[in-house]
């Protein structure tokens, strides 16, 4: 019920409130016009036919037509309004979800798969819409029909009304039971939908792996399992409501019998007119209808509640990374980056332990270390994609938590390990950070990233569409576009997280040379495996299991003969046996 209240609370907005009130009034009016019908029947039977007052016929029949025309207009407007209300609600819900999900930290996306998020944004939102536009209105309408008709029965003859009401408690009890049983089943189905969604998405994303391991049959079996599970859950739901529905149907169909027996006895005993009995049967359809629909409405309501709960769950996940209220809006950012005793934990697991370094503007820091040692985690703290557990990350002397999040991230040029390109032209992808960029700047950035040449060689050049819906690029090409994209921001701090791992050596060398020029006055952090990428850094830190185990310049680390030296040896020995170290090469 809290959920329903919460949905209602969104109607606090004035326009929606007004719409809702008008819509409900129209609903009320439309139902009222229906209440008149059977009463007119009574007049027709008792007065016109029984008492031969034929002059009334014209008025009564005109009234039926006029009422119907009025009702038609009311119903049309009402339905339109309810649709409008639900569409507005859904529009806001989607909008909120969209921008809210964009605020959630990386951690959320570590834990939730896209298949699941999509299933929420489509299936569950549709569930809520369906309820608001159809279910809720129809439920209210039915409640009005029921209470209105009972009231009319009381007006016609209280004994009839009381007789009819006798089955209500039984029906109420069954409905209550049904509600309790069906809720977890719907929740199960929604969950399984998300699972099936994820399963499919993963299979298609990894189809190349599937095929190279000839695991098609294995994948079919896995899918089959989830598919069958979903089938079974649906069947459980079917069995549940195929048990309750006919029962409720039967109980409601008893009401006409009760009414006729009671009414018949009264008519025969001369205590009631035949017209009243016939009129009351007109109301009885308006009573059994809602009773029959009760199960259907509970069904719908429960589905909507399940879906809404899942949606609110997302909305309630506060961004664990919050801006301070008086967050700063730095006009100029020098880019003096400092880590002070930084620790980071994911759950119980220590990822970073006591990381400290000082990186003034214009300097270059290189981070090396084994796979999974925590290198990426360090740079993720700078843009607050995660927050450190203890310690402090400062820029220009201020804690990164004191800055406005967006301003902070705007100053960072970040090239991630895995490149994501959007389905759009290369130009749009490169100017992603700054929509109003001049083409010259795009070309400059892509030239520095050594991407200009291969881009211009493509059939549509900069207008080539890439990404999921575009042409496939090799890993190295994607990385170069990603570098250009980061450079175009003209960032004060540039972070290259293994950004050239798929680029061939020669190109990497060219990128590095041109970058060195651009980044002269700016701060650079490079994560790399190749000594060649890090040796010119002002400071090199070597990370092992989340701790800095060595630090210094290239020369001092070589002298130390530790981990760094070993890596150096590994990479240099390629040239050991050959005379290629000789002078001619150095000037080649």
């Amino acid at each position: 019920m809290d959920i329903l209240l919460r949905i209602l609370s969104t109607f606090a907005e004035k326009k929606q409130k007004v719409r809702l009130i008008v819509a409900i009034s129209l609903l009320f009016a439309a139902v009222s016009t229906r209440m008149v019908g059977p009463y007119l029947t009574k007049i027709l039977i008792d007065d016109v036919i029984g008492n031969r007052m034929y002059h009334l016929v014209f008025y009564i029949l005109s009234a039926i037509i006029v009422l119907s025309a009025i009702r038609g207009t009311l119903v049309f407007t009402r339905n339109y309004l309810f649709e409008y209300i639900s569409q507005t609600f859904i529009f806001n819900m989607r909008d909120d979800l969209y921008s809210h999900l964009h605020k959630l930290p990386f951690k959320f996306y570590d834990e939730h798969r896209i298949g699941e998020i999509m299933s929420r944004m489509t299936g569950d939102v549709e569930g809520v819409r369906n309820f608001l536009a159809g279910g809720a209105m129809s439920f209210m309408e039915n409640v009005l029909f029921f209470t209105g008709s009972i009231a009319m029965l009381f007006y016609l003859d209280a004994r009839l009304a009381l007789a009819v009401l006798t089955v209500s408690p039984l029906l109420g009890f069954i409905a209550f039971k049904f509600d309790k049983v069906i809720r977890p089943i719907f929740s199960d189905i929604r969950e399984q939908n998300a699972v099936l969604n994820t399963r499919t998405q993963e299979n298609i994303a990894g189809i190349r792996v599937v095929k190279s391991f000839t695991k098609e049959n294995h994948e079919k079996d896995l899918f089959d399992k989830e598919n069958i599970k979903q089938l079974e859950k649906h069947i459980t739901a079917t069995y549940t409501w195929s048990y309750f529905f006919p029962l409720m149907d039967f109980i409601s169909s008893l009401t006409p019998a009760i009414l006729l027996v009671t009414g018949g006895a009264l008519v025969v005993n001369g205590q009631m007119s035949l017209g009243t009995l016939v009129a009351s049967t007109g109301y009885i359809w308006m009573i059994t209808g809602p009773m029959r629909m009760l199960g259907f409405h509970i069904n719908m309501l429960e589905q909507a509640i399940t879906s809404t709960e899942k949606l609110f769950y997302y909305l309630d996940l506060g961004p664990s990374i919050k801006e301070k209220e008086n967050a700063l809006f730095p006009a100029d950012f020098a880019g003096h980056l400092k880590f002070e005793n930084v620790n980071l934990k994911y759950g119980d697991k220590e990822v970073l332990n006591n990381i400290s370094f000082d990186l003034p503007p214009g300097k270059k820091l290189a981070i090396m270390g084994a796979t999974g040692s925590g290198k990426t985690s360090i740079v993720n703290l700078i843009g607050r994609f995660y927050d450190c557990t203890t310690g402090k990350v400062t820029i220009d002397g201020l804690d990164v938590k004191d800055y406005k999040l967006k301003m902070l991230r705007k100053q960072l040029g970040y090239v991630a390990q895995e490149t994501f390109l959007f389905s759009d032209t290369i130009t749009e992808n490169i100017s992603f950070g700054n929509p109003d960029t001049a083409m010259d700047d795009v070309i400059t950035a892509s030239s520095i990233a050594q991407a200009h040449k291969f881009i211009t060689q493509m059939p549509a050049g900069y207008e080539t569409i890439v990404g999921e819906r575009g042409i496939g690029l090799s890993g190295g090409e994607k990385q170069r576009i990603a570098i250009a994209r980061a450079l175009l921001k003209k960032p004060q701090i540039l972070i290259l997280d293994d950004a050239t791992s798929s680029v061939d050596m020669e190109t990497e060398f060219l990128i590095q040379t041109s970058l060195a020029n651009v980044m002269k006055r700016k701060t650079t952090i490079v994560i790399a495996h190749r000594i060649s990428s890090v040796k010119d850094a002002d400071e090199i830190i070597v990370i092992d299991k989340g701790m800095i185990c060595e630090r210094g310049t290239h020369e001092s680390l070589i002298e130390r003969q530790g981990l760094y030296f070993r890596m150096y040896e590994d990479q240099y020995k390629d040239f050991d046996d050959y005379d290629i170290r000789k002078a001619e090469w150095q000037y080649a």
Partner: protein
Amino acid sequence: MLRNRLTDDEAIERPFSSNQFFRLLNYLKPFRNEMLIALLFMITSSVASLSGPYLIMLFIDDYIAKDNFAGSWWVLLFYIGASILSAVCLRYRVRIMDVAGRKAIAKLRQDLFDHIQGLSFSYFDSKPAGKIMVRVINDVNSLNDLFTNGIVNVLIDVMTLFLISFLMFSLHVQLSFAAMAAVPLIMLVIFLTKKYIRLRWQIVRRKISNMNAYLHESFAGVRTTQAFVRENENRQIFKEINSDVKNSWMRAIKVNNVFWPSLDFASSIGVVLVYFYGIRFMQAEMLTLGTLMAILWYLGRFWEPLNNISNFYNSILVAMASTERIFEILDTAPDIKDSPAASLMPPIKGFVDFKNVSFSYDEHTKVLQNVNFAVKSGEIIALVGPTGAGKTTIVNLISRFYETSDGYVAIDGINIKDVTMSSLRGQMGIMMQDAFIFSGTVMDNIRYGNSDATDEEVIEAAKAVNAHEFIINMEKGYFTEVNERGSRLSTGQKQLISFARTLLKNPRILILDEATSSIDTHTEALIQKALEILLKDRTSFVIAHRLSTIRKADRIMVIEKGQITQIGNHDELIRTQGIYQDLCKAQYRFLKAV
């Protein structure tokens, strides 16, 4: 991310095609008998429930109007009996039809999924994952209603219509004509709005599928969006797409909702006419009150099936749009198929020959031109060359992920087109540029290479590629759930896991396509040591940029613009003018200078 680029070819609806429809019905065929029984149940229950007004008529005319209340007991008993019968039939009808429909849906979904597994790389190159997913999930789901209820319901509705008309006319012919006088009006409304209703809903569906595509990409790229502070722009775009959906919906609703009020109006006209003439007939004693009421009650029940049938046409059109898209996939034959005479690939020794191989993805761009080489069993071959030169294409041809346009590839002297793909690929280990990790435990992910492997063998493989250490350091070691619910792996760690996976497969031919680019040099060196032992006497192809990886190869092939320009071992090539020497120089200079 422009909107229009997300719209291509989604939700195109064609006119109703009976072929497609019957093909779809085939999925219900196995449930013929069940459906027949369900239909019988349904007929029984609707006849039972339609008997209600008739019984009430008898009750009023024969007993109440004649003050014979006591004699009416059998009518009531009959009524209750009919109600029970109707409820019981409803129960089994729902069970049978729902279960049959759901099963048919599950089968269709499975068929679709299975078919997708058989499609070639070229299909996945051209179709974004999001779109394929929509077909397997959403399009199949949209057939739910049709399968579980729609088809049987519409049969029942048609039958109910006839039954009601029959009952009415058998009660009183003239009055029944009067009652249905307004039916042509309804036909007119249906006729006038039909086209608009269809078109406008079609637009709605297109807008929704646009929105879903945009959502999918938004969440896939959310990290980039956050890093580039593009949230507001994206939100603006989404707002537009979102209002498109809302507005198109409201436009559709406007025409859609004309129907009910006009039905109500037509019904009122009928009621008025029935009263008007009914009273006259009653005056003439040609009609009883009970019959009049019964006709009115039947008239009241006449409109709902009519409404359902008119809605059915719409839902059929919607379902057909989905059906079309589903069959489009099912009808896509894989580009690469086993030839009918394909035999099993005998245990591979590892001789690989390219004979005049050319390849192009389309007519315009030749990717490979007349490539010839012969590799001996057990050789390690490194492929070197600039991005886009065709290195990946060469290795993809060996495992027959693509088909040569000209020439052929032979392994141990057997043209690979003459053997089954599964027996061929089953003996190869292929590691691609991006390591893909499935949801599940680390153990599951490595075991993906060989389902029969014991835990010990999995651990052995992990140790061989130096992945063991980081794995046992995770919360639950080999049983840590990855790629879902919180466990993060670095790119390098993913590569190590997929390395172990490949190794566990114990392949005869190994292909490494930039498989170690994100692994640190130290680990890579260790992997290479392991490989040296494990790949003894096995042929392998390595694409890499790092000299340390390349130089260990027995032979190095330099690929440029789709052709092999140099071939030889490190010692030979480094002394020869050409691309390879340039590469080495660059790397050396890179290492030395800066």
